[in-house]
């Protein structure tokens, strides 16, 4: 028995040494953000302080955009575990977001009028919504465990179609096309609702209060994912991605791992859905279409496949850019005022968004995270030019 495990280990180590140079480079790249903590412990602290202080200074618009980005980041971390680290493609991420968002709404909402709800305490509802999404992922896991790559992508497409159909028709739970109001989060008597609360002279509405919830959730999710990726499961996941058969030979239960990662990834999506619902204060089917799934894929590709930081950077980029471009649409170059026949602000921001995505994919094949990583390696080795 121990001989076999020894052999396994030997093989694993051999496999590790035999990884092609490109992959190895990518791996070091994903590790690189770590040195950032050492020379620049202050950098992290300053960043954290800045994030904590933002609600005191920023407009609700920016806070809300930031919260959308945080929710997207949580979802993207989950998808990156599945797609970036395990090599499984999922087009059904929006479906799990929807399960989380609607799950929370139905569990926490009251049964009144045409709606059905359990009226649970909101923190419990949030927790159960995440568990529920995990269960939904689990139900799909016999399929997720057996299919690989693009095949799984096609199979998960079905989830979106089914999901939207159910949302449109189970109107007592979901509110149908016009959506349903989301009960505000309430933690131990503290309500994260719209009522204003003065903190150091600054009025705190729901966006300001939720900001801290979002930060805490994102931090927790990022640390957990990092732990998974750096430990045994992460190595097994990467082995499955890089060489499924070799991983199986080395004793990694491939199907079980795939299924488990799928469940974990859906739970991340579920939590993202809960946060999204809280920020929106209303859930509607148009938030969970196919385009959303594609956006999540864009996030992890743009940010950097396989790393937690990449997912976060990509999520911020993809979810903030359209909103910021819309906001400053009047000031964009080459934009005509509507009606004069030129490029309208909305179209211009769509073009810019597309161009930015193409530019990142072309010139930063490792994703935006490489930009950060490269700069740190340069500064640590003193190669600054």
């Amino acid at each position, binding site marked *: 028995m121990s001989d076999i495990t020894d052999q396994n280990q030997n093989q694993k180590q051999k496999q590790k040494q035999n990884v092609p140079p490109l992959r190895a480079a990518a791996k070091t790249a994903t590790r690189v953000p770590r040195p950032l903590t050492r020379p620049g412990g202050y950098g992290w602290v300053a960043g954290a302080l800045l994030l904590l202080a933002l609600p005191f200074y920023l407009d609700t618009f920016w806070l809300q955009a930031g919260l959308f980005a945080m929710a997207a980041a949580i979802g993207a971390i989950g998808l990156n575990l599945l797609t970036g680290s395990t090599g499984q493609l999922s087009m059904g991420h929006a479906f799990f977001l929807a399960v989380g968002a609607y799950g929370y709404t139905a569990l926490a909402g009251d049964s009144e009028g045409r709606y059905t709800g359990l009226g649970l305490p909101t923190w419990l509802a949030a927790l159960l919504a995440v568990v529920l999404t995990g269960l939904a992922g689990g139900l799909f896991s016999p399929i997720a465990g057996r299919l690989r790559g693009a095949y799984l992508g096609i199979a998960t497409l079905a989830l979106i179609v089914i999901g939207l159909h159910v949302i449109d028709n189970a109107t007592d739970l979901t509110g149908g096309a016009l959506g349903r109001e989301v009960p505000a989060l309430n933690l131990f008597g503290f309500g994260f609702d719209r009522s204003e609360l003065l903190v150091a002279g600054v009025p705190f509405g729901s966006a300001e209060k939720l900001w801290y919830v979002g930060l805490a959730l994102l931090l927790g999710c990022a640390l957990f994912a990092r732990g998974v990726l750096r430990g*045994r499961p992460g190595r097994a996941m990467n082995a499955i991605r890089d060489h499924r058969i070799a991983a199986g030979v080395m004793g990694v239960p491939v199907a079980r791992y795939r299924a488990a990662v799928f469940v974990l990834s859906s739970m991340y999506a579920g939590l993202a859905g809960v946060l999204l619902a809280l920020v929106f204060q209303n859930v509607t089917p148009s938030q969970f279409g196919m385009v959303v799934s594609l956006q999540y894929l864009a996030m992890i590709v743009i940010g950097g496949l396989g790393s937690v930081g990449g997912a976060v950077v990509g999520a911020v980029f993809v979810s903030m850019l359209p909103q910021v471009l819309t906001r400053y649409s009047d000031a964009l170059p080459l934009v005509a005022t509507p009606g004069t026949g030129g490029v309208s602000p909305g179209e211009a921001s769509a073009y810019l968004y597309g161009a930015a995505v193409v530019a990142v994919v072309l010139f930063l094949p490792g994703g935006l995270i490489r930009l950060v990583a490269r700069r740190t390696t340069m500064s640590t080795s003193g190669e600054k030019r």
Partner: protein
Amino acid sequence: MSVLPPRTKATTKTTTKATTKATATALAALLALAGAAGCSSKASDAKDEGKDDAQGVRTGVGVTEKEITLGALTDMSGVYATLGKSVTQAQQLYVKQTNEAGGICGRQLKLTVRDHGYDPQKAVSAYTELEPKVLGYAQFIGSPFVAAVKKRNEDSKALIVPQAWSAALLGSEYIRVIGSTYDIETINAIDFLMKEKGVKKGDKIGHVYFEGDYGENALEGSRHMAKESGLSIVEQKIKPTDSDMSAQVAALKQAKVKAIVLSAGPAQAASLVGVAAASGLKVPIIGNNSAFAPQLLGTQAGPALEKMYFVASPSLPIGDAADGPSKLAADYAKAYPKDGLDNGVVAGWTAASTFGEALKTACKDKDLTREGVAKALRTMSAYDSGFGVQNYSEPKAPSSLESVILQPDKSAKGGATAVREAATSEAAQSFASD
């Protein structure tokens, strides 16, 4: 078993050292921050509601000495791009004309347009962005998004005029739908079929409708009418992505319907009417106002549309000979010579001029705050923007129960002429008073 190399003591030590130092800095900075927060611009941003200007007019958010800023949350790059463009241009025309005539309350109007492309996140964030800057929203396309901001808008009290006619949007003092809602419109449409197109008690009529609030609200109307007048409804639910209506026509033909109601988009109207005419199902077909666009007349279905299709609309068509429509048509064509005339122009103009009238009334009452404007609108119980009389006194009821029945007509401006003047059917009256 673990392959992870153990952390060396050295690194741990330096990290902890760095951490303690960092924590100290963090604490110091946090303290400084708590003090600084007091001077954040957000803190000094006291509510400016209830400031009186030189003329004694109370003003609030979105109103300065020289300007009144209104928001327009439109869709010029998404699914409702055509509608959004017409509505926005008509509103910009209104703003331009009003400013040339001296503005309102001694102030110039300004329309801040945000194109959300029918994306929920962009729509809600555009609403949030404009909320501290504008007095109200003269346009908001996308009923799911209007519903999404409904609750927070109760706090900010900004007047919103949505470009949607779902009855679910009624009930708020600050979200005011202009004209009859889809259910009322459908009742009036079926009333027209019964009074003028020979549909009688005991007949079957087909109803092809979109999944979602628009179609389902219309369906409530036809169900009510079926109960009132002893009709039976053959329901056909479709998705907005379905554009071939052959299956629906076949089913309705088999059910031997005497007429068809359509609550869908222009593409579905063209397909439904074209296929019905080709397969010999020669019955009158009537659509809600969103189920028609003048561009359809240029398609193969054009001749059939002119013969057997009707449209129920909350306002007079742009091609009507009355003063309001003909003036608007001329002005719009002059301002935007390249763009066609459609019902979006009427809808946008009506919304902007109603908002403008509310501002004028509020100015007379010396209260140009958000609440003042909403209150002023409630006093307008018989306002005619030139396209039909509207009563805004009751937020829970649609502002009008009337519908005009149009018939597509290639030779008319805007592609349609009125075949029945604005009228309220008895059934609509009884439905509204329920």
